[in-house]
């Protein structure tokens, strides 16, 4: 899933390590989300969105998600 996490991190001058510590995950998790290897859970998506003061939809791109 595409996200704007890397973009927002750069804007806020945050390292992956700092963001990871702030939302309670490892740096590897943030890396995996940024390179679209791992999809964050709803709780983590909420924490990341709240951290940047945005809504989940503003950060996570759901356009590829199929609704059956």
């Amino acid at each position: 899933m595409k996200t704007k996490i890397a973009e927002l991190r750069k804007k806020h001058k945050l390292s992956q390590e700092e963001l990871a510590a702030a939302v309670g995950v490892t740096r590897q998790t943030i890396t995996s989300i940024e390179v679209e290897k791992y999809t964050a859970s709803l709780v983590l998506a909420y924490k990341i969105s709240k951290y940047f003061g945005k809504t989940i939809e503003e950060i996570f791109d759901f356009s590829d998600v199929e609704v059956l």
Partner: protein
Amino acid sequence: MEIFKQKLRNRLIFAGIYCAIILILIFVAGYIGLNDSATSFALGFGVGIEAVMIFFIVKCIIALKSEDKLKKLYIEEHDERQKHLNAMVGGAGINISILFLALAMLISNYFNQTVFLTLLAVIMFVILLKLTLKIYYNKKV
């Protein structure tokens, strides 16, 4: 974080008890002169696990002494991607084990009936365990 600290303390107690039991067993085995290969292997196996336990004991003690290290360990243990990986590895690991055990069982049938039956029992047990866990987690989650 207090709950996690208590969890670490409990782990320390458990690891300490385990280490003490292994040391007592080594002492008793030496005292009564048990030197056969089965006892030596069992004790060696126990000592191997003890070495791993000591590693975890040190890790827990370090984490309990520093708030930063405690938070780092907490994140390591509660990281959602890590949990996801563990679930994937566990699931795939059991399936691959069953596959290789089945292969070994089929080959062993040509050479040794006891080994064949042992492997068959192990496979049945692993499959039964997997099914039981599946039913349990299906109801729990």
